[in-house]
Each structure stands twice: as C-alpha cells, then as structure tokens.
C-alpha cells in the first residue's frame, strides 16, 4: 500500500498558478489572456516587466476594470467585462485583431484547458457531450503566438489526469501547447513528450507521475515550484 497523498491539500491555488505564469512573461511582450482563470495573470506582472495585453474584440494595451457604476459598455474585453483605456491604448477591427493572432505578432497566448496531450494537442472548447457548442477565439489563439501556455489544475475534480497521452475530448488545436502551468508542476512539451521543469516540493516525482497520464521526462535537475503563500 503506497502512501496516499492528499493532492487537494498541497496543490497550488489558481492565483498561485497565475502568479507563476506571470513570472515568465518578458518585458514588452504582447500577450493574450484567455477568458476566466488566465485573466488573473495580468495582476501578477513582476515589477519592471511591462506586458501589453491584447483582447480579441479589438483592443491593445487596455487599463484595469472601471469602478462599479463607471462602466462604458462600448469599452469591453473579450470576456465582455468592462475595461478602461489608458495612454497607449489602440482600437482596431476584428480582422486586424486576428491578423495579430494568426500572423505571429503575439508573443504569448495563455489559455485554460480540459486536457493537454504529450504532443501538445489541446482540448479546451467542448466536452463533446452535447448542448450548445461555442468556440469563440480559442482555435485561432492556439496558432500564431510564439508561446502557447496553458494554466490548469493538474487533475480534474474527480482526480483524473488532465495531462494525457492523447486527448479524448474534441481538439482545439494540434501540437500547439508549449508549456503547462499546473497546480503541481511546470511542464514543457518537447519533441512529442512532457518534460518536467518544476514541481512543488510537497510531492515526490513518483506521486506526480501517478497523477499524470503520460510519462514525465526530465532534462537536468527539476526546479522547486514555490509561489507566494499569501496567494494560497
């Protein structure tokens, strides 16, 4: 009987995962943050590193959310939340916006995921279970950005791996993901396989492998994934 690890107790919070992803964004990078969880990354930009954020509905370099009651509903992001303009903001139409995406002009796209495969396939738009299908900009965002990063819990709520040998849900893109920030680890996709870069100190390599659906390779030492405790 192996030791049973309570993953829920040791895993990183969403804010901590977003914080870790923010540390990798270069100064001056053009970045698109997916709707929802990835939007948190904007809050954790390190001092001295200024990223410029892109939103699909035609705004670059927008400001923070306005105070309640101060919203101008002509000024929203792709999540349809109110934003503000600031010195440097640019507006443009939708075809130009996606030219920025597909044309290789974005440095980083950060997305959520249902499943990621070891070859970089991503499933994040449909569970394949029926209902009303909706894709939005997800299939465009996975092509063109120099780095396509995923933020995700390491496992589903039922404890099943989200990092897999092959996705079982409908794909958003083929071989598109370059790095995965999970609640337990930082994993790169290299030549069709997962390479473990960092893991939280509270989990062993064996235990991490047990909750990962494909082999975790290593290239040199595995770093310690340590995030600010106050974000827990």
């Amino acid at each position, binding site marked *: 009987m192996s030791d049973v690890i309570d993953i829920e107790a040791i895993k990183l919070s969403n804010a901590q995962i977003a914080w870790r992803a923010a540390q990798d964004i270069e100064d001056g990078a053009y970045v698109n943050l997916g709707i929802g969880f990835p939007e948190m990354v904007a809050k954790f930009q390190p001092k001295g590193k200024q990223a410029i954020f892109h939103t699909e509905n035609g705004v670059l370099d927008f400001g923070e959310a306005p105070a309640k009651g101060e919203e101008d509903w*002509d*000024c929203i992001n792709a999540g349809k939340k109110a934003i503000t303009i600031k010195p440097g903001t640019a507006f443009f139409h939708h075809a130009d916006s996606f030219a920025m995406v597909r044309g290789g002009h974005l440095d980083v796209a950060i997305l959520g995921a249902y499943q990621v495969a070891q070859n970089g396939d991503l499933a994040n738009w449909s569970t394949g279970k029926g209902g009303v299908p*909706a*894709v*939005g900009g997800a299939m465009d965002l996975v092509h063109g950005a120099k780095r396509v990063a995923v933020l995700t819990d390491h496992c589903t709520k039922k404890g099943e791996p989200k990092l897999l040998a092959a996705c079982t849900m409908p794909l958003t*893109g083929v071989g598109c993901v370059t790095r995965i920030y999970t609640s337990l680890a930082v994993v790169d996709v290299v030549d069709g396989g997962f390479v473990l870069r960092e893991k939280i100190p509270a989990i062993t390599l064996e235990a991490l492998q047990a909750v990962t659906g494909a082999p975790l390779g290593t290239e040199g030492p595995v770093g310690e994934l340590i995030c600010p405790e106050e974000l827990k």
Partner: protein
Amino acid sequence: MDKRLTSPAEAVAGIKDGAVVMIGGFGGSGAPIELIHALIDQGAKDLTVINNNAGNGHVGIAALIEQKRVAKMICSFPRSADPVVFTEAYLAGQIELELVPQGTLAERIRAGGAGIPAFYTPTSFGTDLAKGKPVEVFEGRPYVQERWLKADFALIKAEAADPHGNLTYRMAARNFNPIMAMAATTTIVQASRIVPLGGIDPEQVVTPGIFVDHVVEVAKPAQEEELNRAGAVYP
C-alpha cells in the same frame, strides 16, 4: 449624393424574407439595437443572421430569434450572460447553427468584402470544425481552406457618419462593424451623429463611404448591456 434616411424603419424596409443579414457588434458593444428592433417591427423572417454571438437576454438579436425570424445563425460563440432564447430554440431544433472560429469568421467576412472567394488558415486544422474542408501544406505546415462570407444586408452601428457614408466608430464598438460594412450588397448604418461633409477629418475615417448605402441618425442609441441589466424585453 446623400445617403441619409430619416428613420430606422425606412432603412430596413427593403429586407425580404430569407435574406442573409450581417449584424455588427460583439456582445452588446457595437450592436445596432435600433436597426434590429426596426427589423423585428418590419416582419422579415427565415433570416440567416451573421454575428459573433447569438443574442443576450430578450433584446436585439435575442429578440429577433424569440420572434422566430431567424432560421440560421452563423457565429463563433452562441453563449452569453443570458443565452436562454438561442439555447431553447437550438435544443428544440428550431434554428440552425453554423459554428465558426472567431478569427475565421472575421477573415471570411473580410474576404467577402475584398472579393477573395477562399483562403487558407491554420485555425481549426485537425479539429471537428475542419471536417470536410480541403487542407494544403504551405512551408511544411497544414492549413484549412475557408470560403468567403457575403450578405444581402449589413446592419452597422457607427459613432459619426457624413452624408456620403464615411464612418467613425466608438472604442471597442468597432469590432466586426467595418468588415461587415464591406461584405454586404446593401449596408445600412445607424450613427449616433450625422455630421456635414467635412465634419469627419479624412485622416480619421475608418469606413470609407463606398462601402455604405444608407445612414440614419440614432442619437443616444440604446446599449444592449444596459437594456439587459434593466430587464428589458422587445417588443
């Protein structure tokens, strides 16, 4: 030349049953609510509507669907804060859905306006949304062929218009409006202000008047988000 009309009702009078209608906007921003509501009053049905979304609440496109005027939606994201109207119609089999990735939707519309019948994009390669579409490899990478999208009418919301149909937009309300204005046989614009010729600095024109057929002034236009927060229902 004077493209000005006096009312939204006059502007949409020529839209016939079965027409393909592009409607500008992304969610509520840039949605030409007064033109959509005039179209509901006018009565045309069996419409194919092209928009990023499929309506929110019970106004605008949602109201058009609720009044059973829409046979088919072409959109990328038929969900919203309150998507009940489209959801119920779709699950009941009363409305057809063509789901298109957002950037592909924008480029298909742009291609329609630019006279380009087809193009190749990396988007959707290897996914369910590429099924049945030709694939070609360029510089070692696979791309999916997509076709242009054109419409009989486009309903556009602008900030300022002049009598020739030169247009400016307001902030993120620009979104799909400039490309839809290019891609329709007849482009109908509601503008918050109509100014005299020369009232728009030529350097600031976003949509040149050649793409526009009719302009109608709607001062202080309704904002879909505000209507929905107030629980509005149309008609």
